[in-house]
Protein backbone atom coordinates (compact mmCIF):
# COMPACT_ATOMS: atom_id res chain seq x y z
CA UNK A 1 0.00 0.00 0.00
CA UNK A 2 1.04 3.56 -0.52
CA UNK A 3 -0.87 5.96 1.71
CA UNK A 4 0.25 9.50 2.50
CA UNK A 5 -1.17 11.92 5.03
CA UNK A 6 0.26 15.32 4.16
CA UNK A 7 -0.21 17.96 6.89
CA UNK A 8 -3.69 16.57 7.53
CA UNK A 9 -5.86 18.19 10.16
CA UNK A 10 -9.46 17.36 11.05
CA UNK A 11 -11.73 19.74 12.96
CA UNK A 12 -15.28 19.07 14.10
CA UNK A 13 -17.46 21.89 15.42
CA UNK A 14 -14.44 24.01 16.34
CA UNK A 15 -12.64 21.12 18.03
CA UNK A 16 -9.44 19.65 16.58
CA UNK A 17 -9.88 15.90 16.33
CA UNK A 18 -6.68 15.19 14.39
CA UNK A 19 -3.74 17.53 14.87
CA UNK A 20 -1.47 18.23 11.87
CA UNK A 21 -0.41 14.80 10.73
CA UNK A 22 2.34 13.72 8.33
CA UNK A 23 2.35 9.99 7.84
CA UNK A 24 3.31 7.42 5.22
CA UNK A 25 1.88 3.91 5.34
CA UNK A 26 3.52 1.31 3.12
CA UNK A 27 3.63 -1.95 5.13
CA UNK A 28 1.27 -4.83 4.31
CA UNK A 29 -0.01 -5.20 7.88
CA UNK A 30 -0.55 -2.16 10.07
CA UNK A 31 -2.27 -1.95 13.44
CA UNK A 32 -3.71 1.20 14.99
CA UNK A 33 -4.29 1.25 18.75
CA UNK A 34 -5.38 3.86 21.26
CA UNK A 35 -8.07 4.66 23.78
CA UNK A 36 -11.68 5.28 22.76
CA UNK A 37 -12.03 8.76 21.27
CA UNK A 38 -8.29 9.08 20.57
CA UNK A 39 -8.85 9.63 16.83
CA UNK A 40 -7.82 6.24 15.44
CA UNK A 41 -11.13 5.62 13.66
CA UNK A 42 -11.03 9.13 12.18
CA UNK A 43 -7.56 8.41 10.73
CA UNK A 44 -8.76 5.11 9.29
CA UNK A 45 -11.93 6.62 7.85
CA UNK A 46 -9.87 9.22 5.99
CA UNK A 47 -8.25 6.41 3.99
CA UNK A 48 -11.65 5.45 2.60
CA UNK A 49 -12.72 9.09 2.16
CA UNK A 50 -15.49 8.71 4.76
CA UNK A 51 -13.92 11.58 6.71
CA UNK A 52 -12.56 14.51 4.76
CA UNK A 53 -9.51 16.39 6.06
CA UNK A 54 -10.25 20.00 7.10
CA UNK A 55 -6.82 20.86 5.73
CA UNK A 56 -3.96 18.95 4.09
CA UNK A 57 -4.38 15.96 1.80
CA UNK A 58 -4.60 12.20 1.94
CA UNK A 59 -3.53 10.10 -1.04
CA UNK A 60 -4.18 6.38 -1.41
CA UNK A 61 -2.05 4.61 -4.02
CA UNK A 62 -1.58 8.00 -5.69
CA UNK A 63 -5.25 9.08 -5.65
CA UNK A 64 -6.31 12.14 -3.65
CA UNK A 65 -9.30 11.33 -1.41
CA UNK A 66 -10.77 14.79 -2.09
CA UNK A 67 -9.96 15.49 -5.74
CA UNK A 68 -10.23 11.85 -6.92
CA UNK A 69 -12.77 10.55 -4.43
CA UNK A 70 -14.11 7.61 -6.45
CA UNK A 71 -10.69 6.40 -7.57
CA UNK A 72 -9.26 6.72 -4.05
CA UNK A 73 -12.26 4.95 -2.51
CA UNK A 74 -11.93 2.15 -5.06
CA UNK A 75 -8.47 1.38 -3.63
CA UNK A 76 -9.71 0.42 -0.19
CA UNK A 77 -12.55 -1.42 1.46
CA UNK A 78 -13.80 -0.54 4.92
CA UNK A 79 -15.13 -3.01 7.47
CA UNK A 80 -17.20 -1.32 10.16
CA UNK A 81 -17.02 -1.97 13.88
CA UNK A 82 -20.50 -3.47 13.75
CA UNK A 83 -20.81 -5.59 10.60
CA UNK A 84 -24.62 -5.32 10.88
CA UNK A 85 -24.25 -1.70 9.72
CA UNK A 86 -22.40 -2.85 6.67
CA UNK A 87 -24.91 -5.38 5.37
CA UNK A 88 -27.42 -3.31 3.43
CA UNK A 89 -29.76 -5.89 1.96
CA UNK A 90 -31.32 -8.77 3.94
CA UNK A 91 -30.05 -11.75 1.93
CA UNK A 92 -26.28 -12.17 1.99
CA UNK A 93 -26.02 -13.10 -1.70
CA UNK A 94 -27.98 -10.05 -2.88
CA UNK A 95 -26.09 -7.79 -0.48
CA UNK A 96 -22.75 -8.90 -1.91
CA UNK A 97 -24.13 -8.43 -5.44
CA UNK A 98 -25.20 -4.89 -4.54
CA UNK A 99 -21.53 -3.84 -4.38
CA UNK A 100 -21.21 -4.77 -8.07
CA UNK A 101 -24.43 -3.11 -9.25
CA UNK A 102 -22.87 0.05 -10.58
CA UNK A 103 -20.27 -1.92 -12.59
CA UNK A 104 -22.98 -2.88 -15.07
CA UNK A 105 -21.88 -6.54 -15.17
CA UNK A 106 -24.09 -9.24 -16.66
CA UNK A 107 -26.17 -11.32 -14.26
CA UNK A 108 -23.92 -14.34 -14.94
CA UNK A 109 -20.77 -12.36 -14.12
CA UNK A 110 -22.32 -11.00 -10.91
CA UNK A 111 -23.35 -14.51 -9.82
CA UNK A 112 -19.85 -15.83 -10.60
CA UNK A 113 -18.18 -13.02 -8.64
CA UNK A 114 -20.52 -13.53 -5.66
CA UNK A 115 -19.94 -17.31 -5.67
CA UNK A 116 -16.18 -16.80 -5.91
CA UNK A 117 -16.03 -14.48 -2.91
CA UNK A 118 -18.37 -16.74 -0.87
CA UNK A 119 -16.14 -19.72 -1.72
CA UNK A 120 -13.06 -17.76 -0.77
CA UNK A 121 -14.32 -17.54 2.82
CA UNK A 122 -16.02 -20.95 2.77
CA UNK A 123 -19.45 -19.44 3.32
CA UNK A 124 -21.30 -20.31 0.11
CA UNK A 125 -23.86 -22.17 2.26
CA UNK A 126 -24.72 -18.85 3.91
CA UNK A 127 -25.45 -17.10 0.61
CA UNK A 128 -29.22 -17.44 0.88
CA UNK A 129 -29.36 -16.75 4.59
CA UNK A 130 -30.51 -13.51 6.14
CA UNK A 131 -28.00 -11.32 7.94
CA UNK A 132 -29.87 -11.50 11.26
CA UNK A 133 -29.62 -15.30 11.22
CA UNK A 134 -25.80 -15.30 11.12
CA UNK A 135 -23.49 -15.70 14.12
CA UNK A 136 -20.97 -12.95 14.98
CA UNK A 137 -18.12 -14.73 13.17
CA UNK A 138 -20.26 -15.52 10.14
CA UNK A 139 -21.42 -11.92 10.02
CA UNK A 140 -17.84 -10.67 10.08
CA UNK A 141 -16.93 -13.03 7.23
CA UNK A 142 -20.05 -11.88 5.36
CA UNK A 143 -18.95 -8.25 5.79
CA UNK A 144 -15.49 -9.17 4.47
CA UNK A 145 -17.05 -10.90 1.45
CA UNK A 146 -19.33 -7.91 0.74
CA UNK A 147 -16.31 -5.59 0.67
CA UNK A 148 -13.77 -7.83 -1.06
CA UNK A 149 -16.09 -8.68 -3.96
CA UNK A 150 -15.11 -5.31 -5.45
CA UNK A 151 -11.42 -6.33 -5.18
CA UNK A 152 -9.95 -3.40 -3.24
CA UNK A 153 -6.18 -3.49 -2.75
CA UNK A 154 -6.31 -2.31 0.86
CA UNK A 155 -8.65 -3.42 3.61
CA UNK A 156 -9.33 -1.15 6.58
CA UNK A 157 -10.98 -2.91 9.53
CA UNK A 158 -12.42 -1.12 12.54
CA UNK A 159 -12.42 -3.39 15.60
CA UNK A 160 -12.96 -6.61 13.62
CA UNK A 161 -12.90 -8.85 16.71
CA UNK A 162 -15.05 -6.62 18.89
CA UNK A 163 -18.09 -8.41 20.38
CA UNK A 164 -16.89 -11.83 19.21
CA UNK A 165 -16.56 -14.90 21.40
CA UNK A 166 -13.20 -16.68 21.62
CA UNK A 167 -14.02 -19.14 18.81
CA UNK A 168 -15.22 -16.50 16.35
CA UNK A 169 -12.38 -14.17 17.33
CA UNK A 170 -9.91 -16.91 16.46
CA UNK A 171 -11.66 -17.51 13.12
CA UNK A 172 -11.60 -13.82 12.17
CA UNK A 173 -7.98 -13.35 13.34
CA UNK A 174 -6.88 -16.32 11.28
CA UNK A 175 -8.76 -14.99 8.24
CA UNK A 176 -7.11 -11.57 8.59
CA UNK A 177 -3.65 -13.18 8.80
CA UNK A 178 -4.15 -15.07 5.56
CA UNK A 179 -5.72 -12.27 3.48
CA UNK A 180 -3.59 -11.46 0.43
CA UNK A 181 -4.77 -7.82 0.55
CA UNK A 182 -2.90 -5.15 2.52
CA UNK A 183 -4.63 -4.67 5.86
CA UNK A 184 -4.97 -1.84 8.35
CA UNK A 185 -6.61 -2.91 11.60
CA UNK A 186 -7.89 -0.61 14.32
CA UNK A 187 -8.23 -2.67 17.45
CA UNK A 188 -8.22 -2.91 21.21
CA UNK A 189 -7.25 -6.55 20.72
CA UNK A 190 -3.52 -6.33 21.40
CA UNK A 191 -2.99 -10.00 20.49
CA UNK A 192 -4.27 -9.23 17.01
CA UNK A 193 -2.07 -6.16 16.41
CA UNK A 194 0.97 -7.93 17.88
CA UNK A 195 1.24 -9.91 14.64
CA UNK A 196 1.35 -6.78 12.44
CA UNK A 197 4.45 -5.35 10.78
CA UNK A 198 3.91 -1.89 12.21
CA UNK A 199 1.72 -0.41 14.93
CA UNK A 200 0.61 3.19 15.43
CA UNK A 201 -0.49 4.44 18.83
CA UNK A 202 -2.93 7.33 18.61
CA UNK A 203 -3.45 9.61 21.57
CA UNK A 204 -5.42 12.86 21.63
CA UNK A 205 -5.50 13.08 17.83
CA UNK A 206 -1.73 12.64 17.51
CA UNK A 207 0.55 9.71 16.75
CA UNK A 208 2.09 9.06 20.16
CA UNK A 209 4.19 6.08 19.09
CA UNK A 210 4.91 4.39 15.79
CA UNK A 211 7.00 1.35 14.93
CA UNK A 212 7.61 -2.25 15.82
CA UNK A 213 4.53 -3.82 17.54
CA UNK A 214 6.16 -5.08 20.76
CA UNK A 215 7.68 -1.67 21.51
CA UNK A 216 4.55 0.36 20.71
CA UNK A 217 2.26 -2.01 22.63
CA UNK A 218 4.72 -1.86 25.54
CA UNK A 219 4.56 1.96 25.51
CA UNK A 220 0.76 1.81 25.36
CA UNK A 221 0.61 -0.48 28.39
CA UNK A 222 3.10 1.64 30.31
CA UNK A 223 1.22 4.84 29.42
CA UNK A 224 -1.91 3.49 31.13
CA UNK A 225 -0.22 1.50 33.88
CA UNK A 226 -1.30 -1.87 32.50
CA UNK A 227 1.18 -4.68 33.19
CA UNK A 228 2.19 -6.92 30.27
Amino acid at each position, binding site marked *: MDIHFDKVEVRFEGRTVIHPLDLTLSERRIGIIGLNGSGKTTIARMINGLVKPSSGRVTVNGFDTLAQE*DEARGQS*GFIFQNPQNQ*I*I*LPLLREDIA*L*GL*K*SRKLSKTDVTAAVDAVLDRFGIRHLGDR*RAHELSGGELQLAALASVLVTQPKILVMDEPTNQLDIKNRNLVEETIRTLPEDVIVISHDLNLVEGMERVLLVRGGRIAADGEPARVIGEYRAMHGVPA
Partner: protein
Amino acid sequence: MRSLHIEGDSVLHRLPAGVKLATLAVISLVLFKIDIPGLLAVAALAGLVGHALLRISTAEIWHRMRPFALIVVVVALFTAVFSGTTEGLTAFFRLAALALFASLVTATTTTGDFIDVITKAAMPLERLGVLRAQDVGLSIGLVIRFVPEILSRYEIIRDAHYARGLKPRPLSIIVPLIITTLRSADEIAVAIDARGIRSQK
Protein backbone atom coordinates in the same frame (compact mmCIF):
# COMPACT_ATOMS: atom_id res chain seq x y z
CA MET B 1 -32.14 -7.17 9.79
CA ARG B 2 -35.40 -8.93 9.00
CA SER B 3 -36.83 -9.30 5.53
CA LEU B 4 -40.34 -9.32 4.08
CA HIS B 5 -39.19 -11.89 1.54
CA ILE B 6 -39.98 -15.54 2.24
CA GLU B 7 -37.89 -18.31 0.66
CA GLY B 8 -39.77 -20.53 -1.76
CA ASP B 9 -40.07 -21.94 -5.24
CA SER B 10 -43.73 -21.19 -6.00
CA VAL B 11 -45.06 -19.88 -9.33
CA LEU B 12 -45.15 -16.41 -7.75
CA HIS B 13 -41.52 -16.71 -6.67
CA ARG B 14 -40.51 -17.59 -10.22
CA LEU B 15 -42.49 -14.79 -11.90
CA PRO B 16 -40.35 -11.79 -12.87
CA ALA B 17 -40.59 -8.94 -10.34
CA GLY B 18 -41.71 -6.53 -13.10
CA VAL B 19 -44.70 -8.72 -13.98
CA LYS B 20 -45.71 -8.98 -10.31
CA LEU B 21 -45.49 -5.21 -9.76
CA ALA B 22 -47.41 -4.45 -12.96
CA THR B 23 -50.11 -6.97 -12.00
CA LEU B 24 -50.32 -5.45 -8.53
CA ALA B 25 -50.79 -2.02 -10.08
CA VAL B 26 -53.61 -3.31 -12.31
CA ILE B 27 -55.28 -5.13 -9.39
CA SER B 28 -55.09 -1.93 -7.30
CA LEU B 29 -56.86 0.04 -10.04
CA VAL B 30 -59.54 -2.64 -10.39
CA LEU B 31 -60.08 -2.73 -6.61
CA PHE B 32 -60.68 1.01 -6.60
CA LYS B 33 -63.24 0.65 -9.40
CA ILE B 34 -65.23 -1.98 -7.48
CA ASP B 35 -67.56 -0.68 -4.76
CA ILE B 36 -69.43 -3.84 -3.81
CA PRO B 37 -68.29 -4.95 -0.33
CA GLY B 38 -69.05 -8.64 -1.05
CA LEU B 39 -66.82 -8.68 -4.14
CA LEU B 40 -64.04 -6.88 -2.29
CA ALA B 41 -64.37 -9.37 0.57
CA VAL B 42 -63.84 -12.17 -1.97
CA ALA B 43 -60.73 -10.34 -3.22
CA ALA B 44 -59.40 -10.08 0.34
CA LEU B 45 -60.14 -13.78 0.83
CA ALA B 46 -58.21 -14.52 -2.38
CA GLY B 47 -55.27 -12.63 -0.88
CA LEU B 48 -55.48 -14.80 2.23
CA VAL B 49 -55.72 -17.98 0.15
CA GLY B 50 -52.61 -16.83 -1.73
CA HIS B 51 -50.74 -16.63 1.58
CA ALA B 52 -52.02 -20.08 2.56
CA LEU B 53 -50.80 -21.52 -0.76
CA LEU B 54 -47.37 -20.07 -0.02
CA ARG B 55 -47.59 -21.84 3.36
CA ILE B 56 -47.35 -18.59 5.26
CA SER B 57 -48.67 -19.17 8.77
CA THR B 58 -51.55 -17.16 10.25
CA ALA B 59 -49.14 -15.67 12.81
CA GLU B 60 -46.80 -14.53 10.02
CA ILE B 61 -49.71 -13.07 8.01
CA TRP B 62 -50.76 -11.11 11.10
CA HIS B 63 -47.15 -10.00 11.66
CA ARG B 64 -46.98 -8.69 8.10
CA MET B 65 -50.43 -7.06 8.18
CA ARG B 66 -50.15 -5.50 11.63
CA PRO B 67 -48.57 -2.20 10.50
CA PHE B 68 -51.50 -1.63 8.11
CA ALA B 69 -54.25 -2.99 10.36
CA LEU B 70 -54.63 0.23 12.34
CA ILE B 71 -54.79 2.37 9.18
CA VAL B 72 -57.33 0.04 7.56
CA VAL B 73 -59.56 0.02 10.65
CA VAL B 74 -59.34 3.80 11.22
CA VAL B 75 -60.10 4.62 7.56
CA ALA B 76 -62.99 2.12 7.51
CA LEU B 77 -64.45 3.51 10.77
CA PHE B 78 -64.23 7.12 9.57
CA THR B 79 -65.83 6.16 6.26
CA ALA B 80 -68.59 4.26 8.08
CA VAL B 81 -69.31 7.19 10.41
CA PHE B 82 -69.35 9.86 7.71
CA SER B 83 -70.62 7.94 4.66
CA GLY B 84 -72.46 4.89 5.97
CA THR B 85 -71.85 1.25 6.88
CA THR B 86 -71.68 -0.05 3.29
CA GLU B 87 -69.00 2.48 2.37
CA GLY B 88 -67.12 1.64 5.57
CA LEU B 89 -67.14 -2.07 4.70
CA THR B 90 -66.11 -1.23 1.13
CA ALA B 91 -63.10 0.75 2.40
CA PHE B 92 -62.19 -2.01 4.87
CA PHE B 93 -62.21 -4.88 2.37
CA ARG B 94 -60.61 -2.79 -0.40
CA LEU B 95 -57.63 -1.76 1.75
CA ALA B 96 -57.33 -5.22 3.30
CA ALA B 97 -57.28 -6.84 -0.16
CA LEU B 98 -54.71 -4.31 -1.37
CA ALA B 99 -52.42 -4.92 1.62
CA LEU B 100 -52.73 -8.70 1.22
CA PHE B 101 -51.90 -8.64 -2.50
CA ALA B 102 -48.96 -6.31 -1.87
CA SER B 103 -47.77 -8.68 0.87
CA LEU B 104 -47.85 -11.55 -1.64
CA VAL B 105 -45.53 -9.56 -3.90
CA THR B 106 -43.07 -8.65 -1.14
CA ALA B 107 -43.12 -12.25 0.17
CA THR B 108 -42.08 -13.65 -3.21
CA THR B 109 -39.68 -10.94 -4.42
CA THR B 110 -36.20 -10.27 -3.04
CA THR B 111 -35.12 -6.69 -2.34
CA GLY B 112 -32.44 -7.09 -5.00
CA ASP B 113 -35.10 -7.94 -7.61
CA PHE B 114 -37.14 -4.91 -6.54
CA ILE B 115 -34.09 -2.69 -6.97
CA ASP B 116 -33.39 -4.16 -10.43
CA VAL B 117 -36.91 -3.69 -11.75
CA ILE B 118 -37.30 -0.16 -10.37
CA THR B 119 -33.89 0.82 -11.71
CA LYS B 120 -34.92 -0.43 -15.17
CA ALA B 121 -38.26 1.39 -14.95
CA ALA B 122 -36.46 4.64 -14.08
CA MET B 123 -33.97 4.38 -16.97
CA PRO B 124 -36.01 6.61 -19.32
CA LEU B 125 -35.81 9.39 -16.71
CA GLU B 126 -32.04 8.89 -16.49
CA ARG B 127 -31.77 9.23 -20.27
CA LEU B 128 -33.62 12.55 -19.99
CA GLY B 129 -31.02 13.63 -17.41
CA VAL B 130 -33.64 13.98 -14.65
CA LEU B 131 -32.10 11.52 -12.17
CA ARG B 132 -29.88 8.48 -11.72
CA ALA B 133 -31.99 5.34 -12.17
CA GLN B 134 -29.75 3.40 -9.79
CA ASP B 135 -30.47 5.91 -7.01
CA VAL B 136 -34.23 5.47 -7.45
CA GLY B 137 -33.93 1.67 -7.34
CA LEU B 138 -31.68 1.80 -4.30
CA SER B 139 -34.01 4.25 -2.48
CA ILE B 140 -37.07 2.08 -3.00
CA GLY B 141 -35.08 -1.03 -2.05
CA LEU B 142 -33.99 0.65 1.17
CA VAL B 143 -37.58 1.63 2.00
CA ILE B 144 -38.61 -2.04 1.63
CA ARG B 145 -35.60 -3.08 3.70
CA PHE B 146 -36.47 -0.66 6.51
CA VAL B 147 -40.14 -1.66 6.97
CA PRO B 148 -39.44 -4.89 8.92
CA GLU B 149 -36.49 -3.26 10.66
CA ILE B 150 -38.69 -0.46 12.03
CA LEU B 151 -41.11 -3.12 13.28
CA SER B 152 -38.27 -4.95 15.05
CA ARG B 153 -37.11 -1.70 16.61
CA TYR B 154 -40.65 -0.98 17.80
CA GLU B 155 -40.74 -4.40 19.50
CA ILE B 156 -37.34 -3.83 21.15
CA ILE B 157 -38.39 -0.41 22.52
CA ARG B 158 -41.74 -1.79 23.70
CA ASP B 159 -40.00 -4.70 25.45
CA ALA B 160 -37.54 -2.27 27.05
CA HIS B 161 -40.56 -0.48 28.55
CA TYR B 162 -41.95 -3.74 29.93
CA ALA B 163 -38.52 -4.76 31.25
CA ARG B 164 -38.43 -1.55 33.30
CA GLY B 165 -42.01 -1.95 34.46
CA LEU B 166 -43.25 0.94 32.31
CA LYS B 167 -46.41 1.04 30.25
CA PRO B 168 -45.54 1.82 26.59
CA ARG B 169 -47.03 5.16 25.52
CA PRO B 170 -47.13 6.48 21.93
CA LEU B 171 -44.72 9.35 22.62
CA SER B 172 -42.23 7.30 24.60
CA ILE B 173 -42.17 4.77 21.74
CA ILE B 174 -42.19 7.12 18.75
CA VAL B 175 -39.34 9.41 19.88
CA PRO B 176 -36.71 6.67 20.41
CA LEU B 177 -38.05 4.87 17.33
CA ILE B 178 -37.44 7.95 15.15
CA ILE B 179 -34.02 8.58 16.69
CA THR B 180 -32.77 5.00 16.28
CA THR B 181 -34.20 4.76 12.76
CA LEU B 182 -32.50 8.00 11.69
CA ARG B 183 -29.24 6.84 13.25
CA SER B 184 -29.50 3.54 11.43
CA ALA B 185 -30.28 5.35 8.16
CA ASP B 186 -27.12 7.42 8.68
CA GLU B 187 -25.06 4.28 9.22
CA ILE B 188 -26.49 2.68 6.10
CA ALA B 189 -25.70 5.84 4.11
CA VAL B 190 -22.08 5.71 5.31
CA ALA B 191 -21.90 2.00 4.41
CA ILE B 192 -23.24 2.76 0.92
CA ASP B 193 -20.50 5.37 0.51
CA ALA B 194 -17.80 3.10 1.99
CA ARG B 195 -18.71 0.27 -0.38
CA GLY B 196 -18.73 2.66 -3.33
CA ILE B 197 -22.25 1.57 -4.27
CA ARG B 198 -23.29 5.02 -5.44
CA SER B 199 -20.03 6.74 -6.15
CA GLN B 200 -18.67 4.67 -9.03
CA LYS B 201 -19.10 6.36 -12.36
